[in-house]
Structures are given as structure tokens and as C-alpha cells.
């Protein structure tokens, strides 16, 4: 224990005395003699430049040094480390927030203490290292007092995850939500907040009584309910076909589930317009053949509902297939031996057991629909929903971020409400059906009527999806899709041209820059997301500590916040000291990690709950530490979950748009932001060509990841379908 605390203590001193404390001026080599001024360490700068507020950082470091080095004080070490670490962290944070670029960050501090002659920049390497050192000294102290079973790793990991969530979820969200009561002049007023929350265009119900449009909340909720019902029914039909019938092409269904997840935003909407728009292929054909008059029915509720159903059915399928597979066949066999017919068995046993899955699938689609931004943007017509309204409150002609924040609060409440309802509903009833692997009954065939209904729903829909994707791939090769369908490579060349210049290869295509950044960001954020997510899952499943339920809830928070709100909040929070990240690639990675983490956590929790806890306890008693246990026992058994989180976070980093549209900087442009620009310009050809290339790229990466880690699953444990929850774009 002592050596480990000593290492962190030493690193704390290094951060305080040797490394440059501030960011941006980090030209100073780490081990050169520290210079005064902003390039210097906190110690030098504090002594020579008048930034006296940096000096108290030394106090907890001295305290920790004393209790570690003096044998007489050893007994008090844990308590001292705890107190010192906590004080150090608090002081570093407090001075960072209180003193900005030009002195006091908050006016009342200036009024209290008089003006400050100089300010300070954002945290740099020194500050980061010292803060980290304080965090781990604190958690070591905690563990030393016997909390967390005395396990320093667990304590440290919880501390790290909590600190990261506080910094990268709470802080930004707090910034943006506090803006909901902004009066426009920098003040906060409850009246302004109330006026925004209760605005008539949000809540009015005039569509019921007269020919007016309803409030945006009702629109959103109605759309979400419809989408939830449609996707749940389709998902159920697919799951029944996949599990309970002799349907051969189950692999195709698998492909179907992956496609929408790897589809960049807007693409499905574009394809739907080109098929069903007033000038769409299908529309014209129907008019020619059956005389159905052309109309714009696709713009508005029907179009959004259609595209959302296309996009979210696979998720619902993934949820439902797990549930349908999980129903122990012997239960149904038991029912049949009790003289129930197939139909009666289905109605009295199978269906009730599927109900939690149905509820789950419905609620996931419900939340996805609420947060979806791309489809209503393109196809919404005059049907306004919350997610687009928030976006345009920020970027539209109104320029009213306060309104966006207020609408964000409403959207957040709707999502959290749905989560809460789900929890209540699932918490009260027990539908445990899987007794383990030993159920050797044969799943009973579906009743005839249900079977026909399932086929009749699932197969046309699958065919429709495939046609749509075929068209998308094809569209990239047409001169001007829908207008001039002659084949061309023009769009691909424009995007991905290569030429040979005097200095070698020139990436002359227009898409290369954003493509490389996108791949870099995705490749960096995917393993980090998986690591943070699985670590959090490990803490949630394996460690019992006070407030675990709240902790779990907090980790889910960033999932329910619409991307646009997250994007704005990140700029607000991380553009100025103490944490200055805007304009860097770091902010993109951090945003993706914390946005996609909840899915990783869910996958990890699901997989880890299946691994008997005694395995890791046993490893502990055999002398392996938590790190060793995770590496040697848990990770090898978690391969499916690792694959799921890697794939998911990689793919989401490529296809997300709403969260990053404010975060991409000139240097770090992302593929989707670029594609959206092309769509706005009406340059569908390039947009579709680029999207197709991304779809192919992601398929290859998914195949590679599965190939690399997949074989471990063969034989022993059947992979459990991991619930991939698609994020709002």
C-alpha cells in the first residue's frame, strides 16, 4: 500500500513542481529547469509571478509526504491521505473555476476581495497530473480505511469514473440547463424559466379542437408512441420468424439488424424522398399504373414515422430476439402436456413471458424517436418535434439558447420519465424464465395464424429495407439520381480522387480530410469507450457500495440528453479555463466516449451478470489483484460484450452528427458534418457516394473486429445478444 501511495505522491509533486501548470504554453520540456511565467510549474509560477493562489496546492502534498515518510504517523496515513487528497482536489478545482483568463471569473469575488491583477489559463499537464494524484491519494485513503473491501483499485476506479462523469457529463449539462432561466442579460430568473417551460407553442392542444397544429411536446410524444408501437410489432415479428420458424435466411436478418446502425444520418430520409416524394420513383409508378394522384404525403408525420421505423426496428428486433430465445421451451411443453393447444399455449404462456421484452423494445424506440434529429429535419415538413426545435432555437433566426435549454429540460424529463416507468414496470414483476442451460425442450411451433402474420409483416419489410439500401448504393453511381440515372463514377472521384504530384501521392478528393479525421477519432474513442464502459459495468455489477443505484442512473444520463444539447453544452463548458478543449480533437473523443459509454455499460452489465461472482472472488483469494482478475478472468469471458462495445462506439463515432456539429473545428472536420453540408447544398450524389463508402468501411471494420475476437465464443458459452441501443443522432 505504501509504495503505491508513494508513487502517486511523487507524481503529484512532479505535476506541482516540475511540469508546466497551464495548457497552451506547454513548449517547456518536461524535465528542463522550470522557468517562471505561464510556462512554469505551479511552484515556480506561484512564487515568482504573483499567482499566489497556486501555492496552497503544496499543503496536501506536504501532509501526504509527512504521513508517508515519518514512521510515527503511519497509523494516521489513510485518514490523512483522504483529507489531503480531498482538500487538494477541491482547491485545484475551486481556484481553476474562480480565476479565469482576466482575473476573477465571478463578479462577486472581485467585490469581496478586490480586483485581481492577473488571470490564468486552462489546466495543463502539471495541473492534470496533480489533480489525478490527489484523486488517487484520496481513494487510496478511502481504501486504507477499509471501504471498498480495502481494494485500492476499486476505490480508485470509482473515483476516476465519478470524477470523469462529473467533469464531462454534469459540468457541461449543468452549464446548459442553467441557461434555461437566462434573462438575456446574464442574469437568472425563475419567471423567464417558467415562461419558456410553459410557452403555448410547446403545450397547446389546438389540433384537437380546431385546424391548428398542436404543441411540440404533443407532436413529439405522439410520434414517439407511434414509432414505438410500429417498431415493437415489427421487431416482434422478426424475432418470431428468426427463432420460432424454419425460416432459412436468418443470416440476412442479421445483416438487416446491422445496416441501419451503420447508416450515416439523412441517408434513409434521402432515399425515402427519392422513392416516395412527389417525384419519387414509386409515386410516379403508382400514378402511372393505378392513377393514384401524386401528393406530398411523405413530408410530415408519415415520412418521419416511416424513416424512424426503418431506423429503429432492428434495435427492437435485437431486444425481442433475446426475450423470445430466453423463454424456456419446457414451459411451453409443460403447457402442452396440460392439454393446451398451440394457440392457447401461445396466448397463455408465450405471450405473457414476452411482455417485458415488448415493454423494453417499446421504451427504447420511444426514447430513440424523441431524440432523433436527422429524420424530422429532412422529412418533418410542418410537423415540428422537440429535437429539431431545440436545434433551431440555438442556430435559427431566433438565437435563443435559453429557450433551447428549456426545451432540453422538457425533452430530458420525457426521456427520464420513460426510463422511470420502465424501471417501475419491470421492477414489480418477475418473468424469470431461463433456468440455465439445461433446458432441452424443443421450442414449440407458432400457431398458424401468428406464423402467417409474422411472415406477412416481416418479409415485406425486410425486402423494403433491402431495396432501399440497394438504391442507396446504386444512387452513388448515378449522374443525378432521380433525374438522370446514367451511371458514373463522378461522385466517387470527387470524393476520393487520388493524384500523383511531384511530391508523391496527393489525396486530392474532397472527402479525404474529413474521412481521415473521422477514422482517427473513431479508432481512438472506440477502445476508450469500451474500457470506460466495461470498467463502469464491472463496478456496477461486482462492487457494492453506497449510492450504486444513483451512480448507475448518472451514467445513463448522457444517453438521454439529445445530441444537440450535449454539443452546445460542451462548447460552453470546455472553451475556457480551467478545462480548455475546444478546437482540439480531444473534445470530439471525450464527447463520443461519454455519449456512447452507456451502451458499453449496458453490454458489460448484461454479460457480466452472467459470470458467476465467485469466479472473481476466487481469483482474489488466489492472490490476484483486481487488475489481474479483470485481465485474466473477466475480460476473456467478456469477449462478446467487448466486441459489441467496440463495434458500437466505433460506428457511432462515425455516424453521429448532432452532438458534434458544434464541436467540429476547421482542423477536425468529421465525415457526417461534411455530408450534411452536401445535403444542404442539394448535392445528393456526393453525399450518397460518401455515405455508401462509409457503410462499406464500417462493415469491413465490424467484420474485422468480429473475426479478431469472435472465435473465442465457439463451443462453450452461447453469445447472448447484446442490446445495442442506437443513439440519437
Amino acid at each position, binding site marked *: 500500500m505504501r509504495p503505491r501511495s508513494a508513487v502517486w505522491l511523487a507524481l503529484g509533486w512532479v505535476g506541482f513542481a516540475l511540469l508546466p501548470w497551464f495548457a497552451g504554453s506547454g513548449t517547456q520540456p518536461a524535465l528542463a529547469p522550470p522557468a517562471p511565467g505561464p510556462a512554469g510549474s505551479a511552484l515556480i509560477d506561484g512564487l515568482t509571478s504573483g499567482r499566489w493562489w497556486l501555492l496552497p496546492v503544496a499543503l496536501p502534498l506536504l501532509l501526504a509526504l509527512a504521513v508517508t515518510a515519518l514512521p510515527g504517523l503511519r497509523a494516521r496515513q489513510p485518514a490523512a491521505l483522504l483529507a489531503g487528497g480531498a482538500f487538494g482536489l477541491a482547491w485545484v478545482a475551486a481556484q481553476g473555476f474562480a480565476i479565469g483568463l482576466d482575473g476573477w471569473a465571478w463578479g462577486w469575488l472581485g467585490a469581496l476581495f478586490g480586483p485581481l491583477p492577473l488571470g490564468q489559463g486552462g489546466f495543463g499537464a502539471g495541473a492534470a497530473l496533480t489533480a489525478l494524484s490527489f484523486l488517487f491519494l484520496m481513494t487510496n485513503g478511502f481504501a486504507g480505511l477499509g471501504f471498498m473491501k480495502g481494494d485500492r483499485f476499486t476505490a480508485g476506479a470509482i473515483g476516476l469514473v465519478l470524477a470523469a462523469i462529473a467533469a464531462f457529463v454534469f459540468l457541461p449539462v449543468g452549464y446548459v440547463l442553467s441557461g434555461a432561466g437566462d434573462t438575456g442579460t446574464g442574469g437568472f430568473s425563475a419567471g423567464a424559466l417558467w415562461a419558456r417551460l410553459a410557452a403555448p407553442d410547446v403545450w397547446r392542444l389546438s389540433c384537437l379542437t380546431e385546424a391548428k397544429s398542436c404543441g411540440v411536446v404533443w407532436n413529439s410524444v405522439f410520434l414517439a408512441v407511434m414509432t414505438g408501437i410500429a417498431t415493437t410489432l415489427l421487431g416482434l415479428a422478426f424475432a418470431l420468424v428468426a427463432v420460432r420458424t424454419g425460416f432459412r435466411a436468418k443470416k440476412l436478418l442479421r445483416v438487416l439488424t446491422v445496416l441501419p446502425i451503420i447508416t450515416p444520418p439523412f441517408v434513409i430520409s434521402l432515399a425515402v424522398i427519392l422513392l416516395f416524394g412527389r417525384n419519387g420513383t414509386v409515386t410516379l409508378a403508382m400514378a402511372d399504373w393505378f392513377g393514384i394522384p401524386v401528393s406530398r404525403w411523405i413530408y410530415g408525420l408519415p415520412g418521419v414515422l416511416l424513416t424512424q421505423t426503418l431506423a429503429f426496428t432492428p434495435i427492437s428486433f435485437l431486444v425481442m430476439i433475446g426475450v423470445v430465445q430466453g423463454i424456456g421451451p419446457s414451459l411451453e411443453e409443460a403447457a402442452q402436456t396440460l392439454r393446451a393447444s398451440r394457440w392457447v399455449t401461445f396466448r397463455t404462456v408465450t405471450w405473457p413471458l414476452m411482455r417485458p421484452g415488448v415493454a423494453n423494445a417499446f421504451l427504447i424506440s420511444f426514447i430513440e424517436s424523441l431524440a432523433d434529429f436527422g429524420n424530422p429535419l429532412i422529412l418533418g415538413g410542418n410537423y415540428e418535434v422537440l429535437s429539431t426545435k431545440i436545434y433551431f432555437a440555438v442556430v435559427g433566426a431566433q438565437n435563443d439558447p435559453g429557450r433551447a435549454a428549456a426545451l432540453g429540460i422538457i425533452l430530458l424529463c420525457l426521456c427520464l420519465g420513460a426510463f422511470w416507468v420502465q424501471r417501475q414496470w419491470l421492477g414489480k414483476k418477475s418473468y424469470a424464465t431461463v433456468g440455465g442451460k439445461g433446458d432441452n425442450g424443443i421450442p414449440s411451433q407458432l400457431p398458424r395464424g401468428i406464423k402467417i402474420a409474422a411472415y406477412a409483416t416481416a418479409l415485406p419489410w425486410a425486402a423494403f429495407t433491402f431495396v432501399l439500401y440497394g438504391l442507396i448504393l446504386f444512387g452513388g453511381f448515378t449522374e443525378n439520381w432521380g433525374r438522370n440515372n446514367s451511371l458514373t463514377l463522378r461522385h466517387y472521384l470527387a470524393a476520393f480522387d487520388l493524384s500523383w504530384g511531384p511530391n508523391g501521392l496527393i489525396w486530392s478528393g474532397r472527402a479525404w480530410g474529413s474521412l481521415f479525421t473521422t477514422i482517427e477519432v473513431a479508432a481512438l474513442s472506440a477502445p476508450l469507450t469500451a474500457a470506460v464502459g466495461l470498467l463502469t459495468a464491472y463496478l456496477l455489477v461486482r462492487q457494492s457500495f453506497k449510492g450504486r443505484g444513483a451512480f448507475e442512473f448518472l451514467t445513463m444520463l448522457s444517453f438521454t440528453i439529445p445530441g444537440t444539447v450535449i454539443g452546445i453544452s460542451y462548447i460552453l463548458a470546455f472553451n475556457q479555463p480551467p478545462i480548455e478543449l475546444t478546437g482540439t480533437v480531444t473534445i470530439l473523443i471525450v464527447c463520443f466516449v461519454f455519449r456512447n459509454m452507456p451502451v458499453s455499460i449496458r453490454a458489460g452489465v448484461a454479460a457480466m451478470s452472467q459470470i*458467476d461472482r465467485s469466479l472473481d*472472488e476466487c481469483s482474489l483469494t*488466489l492472490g*490476484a489483484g483486481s487488475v489481474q482478475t479483470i485481465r485474466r478472468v473477466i475480460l476473456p469471458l467478456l469477449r462478446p460484450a467487448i466486441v459489441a462495445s467496440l463495434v458500437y462506439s466505433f460506428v457511432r463515432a462515425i455516424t453521429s452528427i448532432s452532438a458534434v456539429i458544434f464541436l467540429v473545428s476547421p482542423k477536425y472536420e468529421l465525415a457526417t458534418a461534411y455530408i450534411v453540408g452536401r445535403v444542404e447544398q442539394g448535392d445528393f450524389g456526393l453525399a450518397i457516394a460518401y455515405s455508401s463508402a462509409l457503410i462499406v468501411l464500417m462493415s469491413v471494420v465490424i467484420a474485422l473486429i468480429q473475426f479478431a475476437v469472435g472465435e*473465442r465464443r465457439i463451443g*462453450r458459452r452461447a453469445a447472448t445478444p447484446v442490446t445495442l441501443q442506437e443513439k440519437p443522432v
Partner: protein
Amino acid sequence: MSIASKAAGVEFRNVSRRYGSTAAVDDVSFSIEAGTLVTLLGPSGCGKTTTLRMIAGLEMASGGTILIGGKDVTRLPATDRNVTMVFQSYALFPHMSVADNVAYGLVVSGVRKRDAAARAAEGLELVGLGGYGQRLPSELSGGQQQRVAVARALVLEPEVLLFDEPLSNLDAKLRRKMRDDIRELQQKLGLTSVYVTHDQEEALAVSDRIIVMNKSVIAQTGTPDELYRRPNSRFVADFIGGANLIDGELVARGGGTATVALGRLTLSVPDPGLPAGGILLAVRPNAIRLRPAGADGGINGGGDGSGDGIPVTVRKATYLGSHMEYGLTSEFGDLFVVDPNVANPVPAGATALATFTGDGIAAVAR
């Protein structure tokens, strides 16, 4: 190379484990001598497993002090304690071969791979599984898996070896064999072992000493013999070996025995250290013998026909080969009797005379 013992004693001083306001273990103190096998016995929920896990370091005590080998380990995490455990579910790592499972603890402790493999082979040999090293745990039978788990715990030469209901997943015959094997191994290697079970027969069979726990506290500690013959409470008497509990009256004590009046009978029992007055008699099922009524009752001259026994009616008689089991109705309530006399059983419905043998009766507080 051989597997040696580093056996150390364990001591609990006023140890508690609380979850919120409920205590799973409440102010428990005991000590376990090095080289002995001590069983924690009790019904489920009594705190025995929590106690075991506190020895392992898998649970942290909320109060009190835990010493292993005289060293305070109260705040030491499991990893840093030299204690290993055999789990109820065996907890074999499914993705590792048997040999890798057994070598695991050695490898993570930094022993070179080759040495670890050699010692693992030795450990497997010790439990009679030499040559099974390359199999996967799923390819072994339940009993074999159990042995692998024991070998894995042994090769680390722990100061204390813990068993958490190790036999509960095995069938009756295998249980008996495994429990003998474990006891033999423990004695051969001189290990300090703590063994958790809710099966009193298993506890009696393997233990040097037994700690009986009930409702988060220790009910009684002693050798199997002491606990069986001199239970100090109604709970212990009933839990260990089963007992017919009959109201009686303690009338006199002296010379290590006490005299108890039961109806018209007087019985001599070991001194329970209780004041005179109402007590409970715990009568073992095999401490009662049956005589058919009238067979010799009248002859023995007791005019009332009861003499040293009480009249009973046989409600149920079950033939079990080596002995008879009887359910009786008497003035003291229903009695359960095990009688080795299978040659002349008393049929159901008959009346009989129940007599008490000197041994197997104890007085406990009401």
C-alpha cells in the same frame, strides 16, 4: 518440492458486519488453533458465510479485529491475505485448462511458468487427478471439479484454507467420500481449515471443533462430542443431531450432574449450570428405547405398569434396514425415536413403554 503447510491460527475479536441497520455478524469472538479444522455450522442466514468471507477478506468487518497468525488483517484486502478458499460453485475458470486453473494463483503471484506448472501437477497428483491437467473444467465430473478447486487452493500453501459448503453440489455417496478425503488431506498436511456447512452430520464428521452460529451470533463452540452431548441451548440441541424437546423440572444439582423430574420419572443428566426450576430436556432419538406394553411392564413389580418408562402409542413405524424409526404419541407430546432393534419391531397402533437410556439427554434452558 512438496506442498508444505504454513498453517496459522485465526482470531476474531468482537467482529461485526453490518449492512445498514441489520447485522449479519454481531460482535463475534473466537479463535482457531493452527492446524485444526473448524466448522462454522448453522442454518442459512445465520452469518456463517459472512464470517468465512471476512476471514478471506471478501467482506470487510464493520467493527472489531481479525488476526491471522497473530497479525492484524482487519483492513487487508483479500489479495494481500494468505488465505485461499474452495467455493460452493467451485468457481473454476471455464476458459482455462485444469492445469492453468491450478497454476493460476502461482502465476499471478509471479512464480515462473515452469515452476508453477510443476507445482500445479503436484497439486493435482495430491487430489488424485494427475494426468487431467489439459482438460477443460467442463469436461470433468462434479467430484473431479471439486478436487481441482481444492488443488488450486492448496498449491498456494495458504495460512488458512477455507471451504464454503464445498460438498453441497454432490450426491450423497460422493459427499461422504469427498468429506473423508478433505479431512485426510487436512490432517496429512496439517492445514488450518475453516469449513462452512449447514449439514450437521458433515460438521460432526470432519471437524476438530465446531462453531454453531444462529442469528448473527455464536450459539456454542466445542468439539463435536461436546456439542452433541452437552448442548447449551434449545437451538443447538435441536440443530445438532435433532432432539425431542420435553418440558422438565430441574430439582437438584451436584457432582457434575443434575437431577431432572419428568412426570413421575427422575433422570440424571449432565449439569447444565442452570438454576432449579423449569427446563427443557433435549432427548436424542436414539436415547429412547421401546418395549411393547405388557411384555414385561407388569412383571417388574411397579404396580402402575410404568416403572422407569412412560406409556406411549406408536403412531408410525418405519423400517430402514439398519434401524427402526418410530413416531410416538405420549403425555409429553409427540416423540421421534430411532431404535436399532429391528428384530422385534413394535407395529403402528400398538401401545408401548418408552424408556430413557442414560446417555443422550441434556437439559437446556426453556
